[in-house]
Structure formats: C-alpha cells, structure tokens
C-alpha cells in the first residue's frame, strides 16, 4: 500500500509550489526527450534505410548473411517511373527520391479516387521507384514497393515479380502494426513461402491474385492465383489482398507492368 507522506508542511502543498514543481519536471523531461530524439535521429534514419535495402535484397534473392548491405545493393538497379504511363523517368535520380515526402506534396502526388482506394492509402505519389535485378543485362526480377491498410495499421512491403511481370517471385513485409501473434503472420517465413509461383493476372488480363479466407482448396480452379490465408487473422489477409489489388491494378503499377509484358526494358 502506498503511504501518504506524514503530515506534509503547508508550504510544500501550496498551489504555487505544485505548479512550480510540475513546470520544472516537465521542462527537464521534455528537454531530455527532445535532445535524445534530435541526437539519435540521423542514426535511426540510416538504420531504417539500411533495413529497407536489406529487405529489397532479400526479395531480390541477393542477400548474403555476411555481405555488406550497401555493397550488395549496388547490384540492384533503382528506377523512377511515372505511375500513370508506366514509363521510366531517367532524368529523376532515384537516390534523391523520397516517397514519403513526395506523397505529401500536392504537386507531386494525386488523391486516389475513393472507389479505387481499396487499400485505404488516401493519396499516392505520381512517381514510384521500382528496383530491377539483372543478370547479364536481362531483367531477372522486378521489385515493387507496396503498402496498404491491414486491420490496425499500414503494411509496408516489397513484391518481387518474375520478368514476365505476371508471376510472383517473392514478397516481404518490413513494417506493420498488426497484433503480435495474430496479424504478424505476414512477417513469418512459412507464409512467405506460399507466394512464389502464384500468378497475378489471368489469360484475359484480369487481376486475380489474392489471399483467400483460410486454406486454398486443392481443387480450386483459381488456386494458381490464391495464397492461403491464416484463420483468425482474415482481416489482415484482406488488407494484403487489397494492397495487391490496388498496386497491381490500373491506378498502381498496372501500366508499368503492361509495358514490361509488352517487352519494354
């Protein structure tokens, strides 16, 4: 049981004293927190960048446990594209492209029409950086940044496609705020392993890829487009379906992927 201090002196309990103590404690604590945030910011940003690169290398199939991430990353080719036309914008330096900043800039971003905004993103940058992996000049993987709302939080990840622009090579989610033990199946290896080989569009060009509710039945005619869901966490799985549907649709990377399928470089 907390003890009430014995008979506090009148002075100690005065209103002025209370306000003064509260003021000074707040002042000291806030300066402490603010200076820690400012001093540590650059390191945190560097860590976050390194982590993004590591995840890109992971879906590129280029990550080596002992290798230096920044050195390995030199093998990946970042390219800025215009999402509306799907064309490469070679005069824009991918190094200086900050998707977070451009998304906030009204000139460089667009509001996603409500009926298209299934992934609940709100607005997106007009441009995006995609990452190409090449082997002797030939593209071997196309890596697309994707994001969208799950149940509680925005999920951020990378989807890697084969050079046909239609077969999933890999997927990774590197940031989310779903419930640990329920919605965090996204970051687990067994679930990730169900993706490679799944197809995105059917022969008619219809976008079919999705996370199903529960396990995909063996005789499901659409099994090639469906990834097993996790029961008890259907809503996070729906979030993944929605972000795939948005980003691979006509308002997302659709035009870019059509160019790729049409044989562009």
């Amino acid at each position, binding site marked *: 049981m*907390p*003890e009430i201090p014995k008979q*506090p002196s009148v002075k100690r309990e005065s209103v002025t*004293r209370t306000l003064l*103590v509260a003021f000074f404690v707040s002042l000291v*604590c806030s300066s*402490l*927190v603010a200076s820690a945030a400012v001093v540590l910011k650059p*390191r945190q940003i560097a860590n976050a960048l390194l982590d993004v690169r590591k995840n890109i290398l992971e879906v590129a199939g280029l990550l080596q446990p002992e290798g230096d991430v920044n050195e390995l990353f030199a093998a990946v080719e970042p390219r800025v594209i215009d999402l509306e036309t799907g064309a490469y914008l070679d005069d824009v330096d991918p190094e200086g492209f900050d998707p977070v900043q451009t998304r906030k800039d009204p000139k460089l971003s667009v509001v996603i029409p409500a009926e298209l905004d299934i992934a609940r993103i709100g607005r997106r940058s007009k441009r995006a950086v995609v990452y190409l992996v090449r082997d002797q000049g030939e593209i071997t993987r196309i890596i697309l940044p994707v994001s969208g709302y799950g149940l509680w939080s925005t999920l951020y990840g990378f989807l890697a496609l084969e050079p046909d622009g239609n077969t999933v090579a890999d997927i990774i989610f590197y940031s989310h705020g779903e419930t640990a033990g329920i919605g965090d199946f996204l970051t687990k290896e067994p679930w990730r392993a169900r993706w490679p080989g799944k197809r995105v569009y059917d022969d008619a060009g219809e976008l079919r890829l999705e996370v199903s509710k529960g396990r995909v039945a063996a005789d499901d005619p659409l099994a090639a487009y469906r990834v097993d869901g996790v029961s008890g966490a259907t809503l996070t799985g729906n979030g993944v379906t929605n972000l795939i549907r948005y980003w691979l649709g006509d308002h997302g990377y659709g035009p870019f992927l059509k160019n790729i399928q049409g044989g562009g470089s």
Partner: protein
Amino acid sequence: MSSRAKRALLDPIVDDNPVTLHVLGICSALAVTTSLLPSLYMCVALTVVASLANASVSAIRKVLPASIRIIVQMTIIASLVIVVDESLQAFAFETSRELSVFVGLIITNCIVLGRTESFGSKNPVGLSFLDGLGNGLGYSAILILVATCRELLGKGTLLGYTILPNVADGGWYSPNGMMLLPPSAFFVIGLIIWAVRTWKVEQVEEAEFRIHEVHRTEAH
C-alpha cells in the same frame, strides 16, 4: 558498502524478487522471452529505467508535493523510457524491432512505479539507485532464466547458436513449438516460483482461506 546498501541491491534478486515474490512485470516476461537476445536488451532497458527513475524521484522527494507525486513519477519514467527506446532504435535496430511495443510498455511496468513510489520517494538518492538496480537485476534474472528455457527447448538454440541440433537439420532434437507460445512462459515462471518457494519456504504466502470438509448439516 554499508549493509543497507547491500540489502537494497541484493535482496530483490532472490529474497525479495519483484517477479517471483511480488508477481509483478509478468506481462513483458511473457511477451519478450521467446528468445534470449531480445530478453537481454529488455533486461538492460528495464534496469536502466528502474535505477534512474528511482534515483530521480528520490532527488526531488523533498520538494515533491504529495498531490501530484504519481503523475510526476510517471512523467519521469515515461521520459526515461522514451530515451531508452530511441537509443535502442538507433543502436540496436533489429532487436528494437523485435521488442516492438514492449520497451514502450516499461512505462506501465508495475515494478518501476512500485519502486519509485514505495522506495525512491522515501530514501536517499544513492540507496534508491541501488534499489532500482537491484530490482532491475531481479527482473533480469527471471527473464534470462525463462528465455533460456524457452529458446533452448523451443528452438534448440541459445542467442541464435545451435546447442541442440534439430531433427530438421539432421540432428536429434525435436523442438517443442509450444515453448515459443506465450502460455509456456506462464508454466516456466510458475515452475520457477515453485522452485524458489521450496528453497525459501518463508516466501510461501499464508493461504487466504482453508478448504475443510463440509459437514452434511452445514451444507444447507
């Protein structure tokens, strides 16, 4: 070291352990102990916060009006936790990601506020620091024990190094997946409390009521 200081530091490790005797701080002990490395970071984080918070509250104990003492203590604890959390994100990025919200939740860990309120607000700075340190170490001792059991039995590894080679990799040990789920931490903590109370019988609590045979006439 004076005997009082020694007691403030060492008592919470076994004789007055915050987890096994007072059964505090269980939530994070369940959540972060699936493997040893994040648990070690969690231990350091809690120990730093507990000792500095206790010392800081003690430093202002003579001017602190009773009417706002809890909120002031919470402000100090919360600020320290934010600093520790930010530092982890800067210097131990991967682990901080694994610990996710649990570092932030040190703010609500009853061990920290429990010590500042019951000890720091009544004792000198040095002694309060040692008391916070001791309680942090007591919490750490349990966390490390639980995490060692869980990682070893659940994955056959310690700090990521293989100790018991898995059947899947051609070894002989077949990992017990249940050890990686939260309930197993309950079992392990329960077993530890049982072991400690068998060794230190004086920690066994007085039963709050006794079950006695009900006589037929009493039952109506």
